[in-house]
């Protein structure tokens, strides 16, 4: 699967998790693509943690780029009719206070306990947690959208090795190979990606996977 198809697969599958009326925060990077695949018959509101609700798609015409209206990545954005601007304390009151239905974030590592690491690699890369630690603790449902492996190495581990973003907060992991649910019993393989087999998912995953008798393929 090429990079583009892979990202599209993940974003499309995550978009299927959205329900009418949901309030959603999409992390920087791949999660942002989810906005492109929201089913047309539902109304979903996106929050931009830098300070507004009703985040719309980026303006297509570069001429109309307004530097006062950017998303949390500092990139051109728009606001939909019925949106609202607010400051950072209000933005994080929304996030931390449990008012978001879903947050979709990328990850470096996720583990069997629903732990997440996505903000630094000691001695190599320190980005900072930004709003991720608040989002993961506050949103009702935490979905991780990421490639299943990094340079062939598993990212879904028995136990995260990198500094954590949060403990026990991940609910669902969506990759190009699988949809995996985090339950009290462990990680459950719920769906297979367009090209993956159960065995391939098991081989690409360090964590123990609980495999139901029937694992359907993603309906994209």
């Amino acid at each position: 699967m090429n990079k583009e198809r892979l990202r599209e697969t993940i974003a499309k599958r995550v978009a299927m998790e959205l329900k009418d009326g949901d309030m959603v925060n999409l992390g920087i990077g791949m999660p942002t693509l989810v906005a492109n695949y929201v089913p047309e018959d539902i109304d979903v509101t996106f929050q931009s943690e830098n300070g507004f609700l009703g985040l719309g798609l980026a303006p297509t015409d570069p001429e109309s780029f307004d530097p006062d209206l950017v998303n949390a990545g500092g990139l051109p954005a728009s606001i939909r009719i019925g949106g609202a601007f607010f400051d950072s304390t209000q933005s994080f009151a929304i996030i931390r206070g449990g008012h978001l239905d879903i947050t979709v974030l990328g990850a470096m590592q996720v583990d069997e306990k629903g732990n997440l690491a996505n903000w630094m690699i000691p001695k190599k890369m320190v980005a900072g947690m930004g709003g991720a630690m608040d989002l993961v603790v506050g949103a009702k449902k935490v979905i991780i959208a990421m490639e299943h492996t990094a340079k062939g190495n598993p990212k879904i581990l028995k136990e995260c090795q990198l500094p954590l973003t949060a403990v026990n907060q991940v609910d669902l992991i969506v990759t190009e190979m699988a949809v995996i649910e985090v339950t009290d019993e462990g990680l459950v393989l719920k769906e297979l990606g367009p090209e993956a087999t159960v065995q391939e998912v098991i081989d690409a995953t360090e964590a123990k996977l609980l495999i139901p008798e029937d694992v359907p393929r993603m309906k994209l």
Partner: protein
Amino acid sequence: MKKVITLEEAANLVKDGMSIMVGGFMGCGSPHSIIRTLEEKKTRNLTIICNDTSRVDYGIGKLVAAKQVSKVITSHIGTNRETGRQMNEEGLEVELVPQGTLAERIRCAGAGLGGFLTPTGVGTVVEEGKEKMTINGQDFLLELPLSADVALLSGAKVDTKGNVYYEKATRNFNPVMAMAAKTVIVEAREIVEPGEIDPNHVVTPAIFVDYIVKGENFHE
């Protein structure tokens, strides 16, 4: 009466070694003209408190790149390669704070509170050195107020009493920082007479603002 001052006078209020809060999110809503003046004056040894360190050539990131900063308290440094490099190679001190916690610590100082309990960061390195409290079975970290010598902010419209109106996503950390610094300077895109901003639309009331300066270039 609030004093409308020059950019030069505004920059002179910031002394070597001071802590400064700077509004903005990836440079959106930052006081770009004041930052440029500080760069020209080569004010040094600053502690900057800002959501992020933006880019090397935009917003507060320019002061990092010009090595005028000795300490950064922020939620994200990943978009400014100089912050990470100086941290690793030149001893730049960086305190990373989850974004919601950063906003709330500043509010805490401005609102006269002694601290607050947040679930954000529990079980992560953010815990280090902090008191942990359990309330009704849930773990929280005790986070403490964060104040500064000077706040450098940006507003779309500022009246000569100091009432501030923000536009779009430029609001972010500006209103909360206005509450938490000994001296508060707002760079105005437009300076208007009292009464020109509807009292229902004022976001930062004049009581928080000490000085107003007319900005020259809003996205440099």
